[in-house]
């Protein structure tokens, strides 16, 4: 139990630290949101417009930084994230709501698929160490995972969308359609999401294969595996329940963290495939010095990572009795 208490303490201290950092960092950036607006419009707005926008943004407030900090903490706790400057006057919550489902769907699914696939393949190649499978798979994926994923995305777009025309040129669903619950819409989402998801899976699966294979090899040499073999258990059971279950432990925290980072989206994939996710929104918030939006997104990312790590710790405690006893 004390193990969990310690984990929770750590969780809250980290949370407070990130909240504070989150407040300070955007404010030490140079410039102001109205100037950033000029950048975004490439000078196609007059200074008068900028002045009007400054008034509308309420940039001329005289609140002290400490007052702002207290208000920020209060707003964060009450879930009042303010108004986005980039998408003025839309509330930050609405901006995030627009991109979140797509990011969770695309990057989340791709991460889970990559982890599941990578772990399984890693397990198999370690199980048949030196086999054809083991000789080909790890090296191939190490090479592929070294590709920048936007580059691979561009290549796929060029080959399968632009030249062959099998897949659409971007967007999350057909341009003229609107979000609805129907099979045809679900089909569109899958069709539009296929190439971006494939890009992410292919470039990230290599890492999982490799780490799983390596820990699996060490585990296979353990006495309890030999014992299980000697007892005549079925090979599948040994692979999954004896070797696999132990080998997966170090990977679990890594997986939890990458799940947490799902919220930050995949900026370059979103740009290449013109996909409406949060990654690009985050980039825009930074470009536009949109404090409210930026802070909320960073907050969500840190919160998601912290929660995921906490969940992984709990899961580790369940899977591995040793962690519980050591506490």
């Amino acid at each position, binding site marked *: 139990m004390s193990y969990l208490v310690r984990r929770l303490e750590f969780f809250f201290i980290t949370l407070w630290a990130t909240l504070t950092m989150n407040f300070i960092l955007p404010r030490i*950036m*140079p*410039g*102001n949101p109205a*100037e*950033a*607006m*000029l*950048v*975004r*419009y*490439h*000078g*196609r*707005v*007059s*200074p*008068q*417009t900028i*002045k*009007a*926008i400054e*008034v*509308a943004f309420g940039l001329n407030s005289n609140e002290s930084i400490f007052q702002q900090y207290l208000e920020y903490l209060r707003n964060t706790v009450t879930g009042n994230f303010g*108004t986005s400057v*980039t*998408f*003025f*006057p*839309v509330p930050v919550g609405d*901006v995030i709501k*627009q*991109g979140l489902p797509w990011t969770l769907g695309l990057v989340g699914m791709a991460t889970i698929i990559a982890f599941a696939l990578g772990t399984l393949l890693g397990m198999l190649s370690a199980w048949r160490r030196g086999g054809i499978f083991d000789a080909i798979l790890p090296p191939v994926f190490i090479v592929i995972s070294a590709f920048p994923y*936007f*580059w691979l995305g*561009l*290549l796929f*777009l*060029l080959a399968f969308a*632009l*030249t062959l025309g099998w897949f659409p*040129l*971007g*967007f*999350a*669903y057909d*341009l*003229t*359609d*609107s*979000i609805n619950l129907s099979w045809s819409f679900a089909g569109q989402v899958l069709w539009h999401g296929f190439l971006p998801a494939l890009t992410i899976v292919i470039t990230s699966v290599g890492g999982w294969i490799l780490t799983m294979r390596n820990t699996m090899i060490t585990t296979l040499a353990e006495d309890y595996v030999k014992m299980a073999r000697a007892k005549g258990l079925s090979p599948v059971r040994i692979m999954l329940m004896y070797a696999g279950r132990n080998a997966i432990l170090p990977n679990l925290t890594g997986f939890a963290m990458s799940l947490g980072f799902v919220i930050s989206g995949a900026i370059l994939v*979103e*740009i*290449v*495939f*013109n996909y*409406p996710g949060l990654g*690009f*929104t985050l980039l*825009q918030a930074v470009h536009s010095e949109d404090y409210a939006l930026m802070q909320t997104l960073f907050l969500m990312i840190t919160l998601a990572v912290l929660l995921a790590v906490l969940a992984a710790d709990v899961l580790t405690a369940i899977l591995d009795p040793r962690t519980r006893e050591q506490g």
Partner: protein
Amino acid sequence: MRGHRLFGIGLGAILLLASCGGSTGNNTGTQKSVGGVLTIDNESGALWQCDFNPYNGSVNGQSFGILYEPLVYDNLLNDQKTNWLASGYKWSADSKTLTFTIRSGVKWSDGQDFSADDVVFSFNLLKQFPAADLQSDWSVLSSVTKQGSDQVVMTFQQAAVPNFYQIAGQTAIVPQHIWSAFKDPASQPVKQPVGTGPFTMSACTGQNIAYKRNPSYWQKGLPYIDTVNYPAFLDNDPANAFLAAGQAQWGGQFIPNIDTYYVGKDPHNNHYWFPPIDNINVWLNTTVAPLDNKAVRQAMAYGIDRGAVSQKGEFGYEPAGNQTGVLSPTFDSWIDKGQADKYGYKLDVTKAQGLLQSAGFSKGTDGIYKDASGKRLSFSIINIAGYTDWVASVQVIQDNLKQVGIEIKPVNLEATSYFDKLFTGNFQLAYGSVNTSPGPSPYYELRNSLHSATTASIGQTAAGDYGRYKNPTLDGLFDQFGQTTDQAKQHNLIKQVEAIILEDVPIIPVTEGVAWYQYSTKDFAGWPTKDNPFAAPAPWNLPDWEVTLLHVYKKS
């Protein structure tokens, strides 16, 4: 709009490998019938928020023109004025009162009648809420009242003839019966827009806005197009791919290697035209010695090969500028050829060095000129690191000036800190444009670049005139321009302005920024062209895009 600068050249080059999909065009159809779905391709840099408020500067690009209209359409490229929601207007003799006659028979898209009351309401709304007054109409207006049943009288604090462009041409008129309920018109989200425009908003998602033809539009029989789709593109590259694949017909952003990448896909139907709309200059901070010395400024103007900058820095897409400061060919009728030729500013090393020598500078052993005290002619020039074309342009300028004997050190900054330095005068030289919306004659850009009323002391934000140039004679010429509606007089005044810019070189125009515009004649005709510039052609030219959409029709 972000597409103004040449972004993402590297990524685009990869897509360039795309193979062609040839097709044959048919240009014979001249029957203009109603119908067709036209798709706009303009990098918006964000998903749509589905807000159609013309008084909100961050979203008015999706509503002003096509949904809400101005009183008079004033063509950005040639100042041709067409009566729009006003059927006529008249200036008083002292140019301080402007009377509009409001068009009758116009209906709002919800069926209610449009009237002079809506116009009076709209302008007074902007007075009440300065945040909504995007064009600063009330910096010159003093009252807007109704007269009789269909006239609107505007009085001005001073003669303000050029402000006609902002007031009549750039201010959207909104319906009183809906907007009178809004508490804060600048930030009011407008989800169901009601306007007088040729289209109505029929559906909006983050990805796309669909506009449908307004069957009761006041210009009978118009528009021809049935549906306009406006997808949201996050970046240039996907937008360019979409356009090149023929999925959109009207583009408005930079395309690297456009002749192969876009025109080559369908040479018969894919076209582009890039009319210049502003100058990209070397700004000289005239408060910094020795940039306060005219001879040094002139020497620099003779030390830059503008053609080379255009070719090497801008791929030839943005043409070379000229030292009169007047855009060519856009405003050719305003250029004083004779004077420009007399000075003949072009790369002329001998002449530049002669100017420096007669001003008391001597060449040092390192090839750079020095003043009597031994101070070298060496300047830093600020620039935006993300604008790869500008960075390349400054490299050419750097090489040019080195031949003359002037050292330039580029400082490539992140955009926000660049603007901060530019606006506050915290630079020696700066590369860039004046960051105000362009106007329909050279007056607008030149006044904003050089009138001392737009400047501020060092450390304060200047709205224009970043070089802190002060010349009472020049200011007087601009002020006189503002008081006259006489075309001949206006031309004469601008010629005097050019004379000062040529002689005094307060700024060095190097290249000309353009309106990026691509169009396909495969299915649609009636586009604005170089020979028929009835509207500024980019989809982000407001409200000109409405006029383009009124002319374009589907070929049968």
